[in-house]
């Protein structure tokens, strides 16, 4: 279900442009509003739909799922940590779904750029940057060297 933008609701903030992994959400050069430049290249990840603070992005459902005349609307509520989907079919039937997005407050996860750059010595470690603290464990589970040799003649 590729996404599209209601240009009368969009305020051109660019959240969808920033988040689109396919880089197909662009800003229109005449009206400075977002639009999907290539719906058939859409991965249907719905990142733009979920990110839009104006609820200006909708999905165009496939015919076998929701025939013409339907709407698929999304409401993200940051404070409640929920995302709600409402599918309205052309015969008037509705399906509503509510899912939790996350369990921590919105904006509380540190971005990778907020961490200090690792030192050059860190390159010698087999662990990734900021492991294991960033994973909130004391130590990563790993085999000891003597365990690696077990079973080898």
């Amino acid at each position, binding site marked *: 279900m590729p996404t599209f933008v209601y240009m009368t609701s969009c*305020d051109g903030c660019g959240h969808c442009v920033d988040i689109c992994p396919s880089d197909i959400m*662009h*800003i229109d050069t*005449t009206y400075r509003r977002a639009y999907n430049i290539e719906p058939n290249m859409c991965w249907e990840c719905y990142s733009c739909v979920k990110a839009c603070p104006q609820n200006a992005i909708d999905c165009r459902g496939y015919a076998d799922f929701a025939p013409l005349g339907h709407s698929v*609307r999304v*409401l993200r509520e940051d404070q*409640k940590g929920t995302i*709600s989907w409402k599918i309205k079919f052309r015969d008037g039937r509705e*399906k509503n779904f509510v899912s939790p997005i996350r369990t921590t407050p919105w904006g509380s996860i540190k971005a990778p750029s907020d961490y200090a750059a690792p030192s050059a010595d860190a390159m010698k470690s087999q662990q990734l940057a900021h492991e294991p603290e960033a994973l909130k464990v004391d130590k990563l589970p790993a085999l000891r060297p003597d365990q690696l040799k077990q079973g080898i003649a």
Partner: protein
Amino acid sequence: MLTSNPFAGLSGSISPAIMQAYVIVMIALVVGGTLLDLVHKKSARYFFESWRSAKARATRQVGGGEMASLAVQTAVVDVMTSGEFCNARRRIAHLMTMYGFLAYLITTVIMVFVYPTSATATPGIVTALWYIGALLVCIGGYWFWFFIRVDVAAEGNSPFRLVRADLFVVSLIASVTLALIWAFFQSTGAAGWATAFLALYIVASTVLFGSVAWSKFAHMFYKPAAAFQKRVEEASGLRRNLPAPANSPATFGSARQLPQNY
């Protein structure tokens, strides 16, 4: 410099009547351009059709008192504080540009029509507001142009790339910047530079007010109407087909059904 009226200084070489006529022509161009835009884009037709459609689908009636309250909320939140913007930087830049432009525009009209010559001293507050307004437009406008525009920040385009959506903001900041430079040379007595920048100022201002039908200038008239309509729709019980808030969903999940596609 903040106390000098550049238009009074200009009255020695250009008659105040010509300046006043120019301002009237610009106002007429804005009115004409907006009307042309309304007809061409069918914005008014879309607005009234949406209004009628929303009224027909409304689940509750909005009374006169509530309508007045919504109008006040629109004026205070959406218009005076640019509440539509979700990006704080963009909102601040917009507020600076908006209030700067209003101060600059109103004081220009006052100076041209009320204090067009040096014979009547211009109050310091009027001239100061003209310069402060122009500076605010420059700060907000250049901030937006170089740092906030999405197609520059996210897509890596050149900050100097020009597209039609930029017509309004570019002609606005060009006009105001040239006005400040012209006023500076006027106050220092550099007649040659002052004349050159006056000519550029007139060209930029004519483009700004004459291109309303093609630029985003008219958004200042449409936006309040659209924001008011949105508030009335919400008060009428319409949510643009959006799901109900998660704490009281109409249906929490959907009834499990056996697949019927085999």
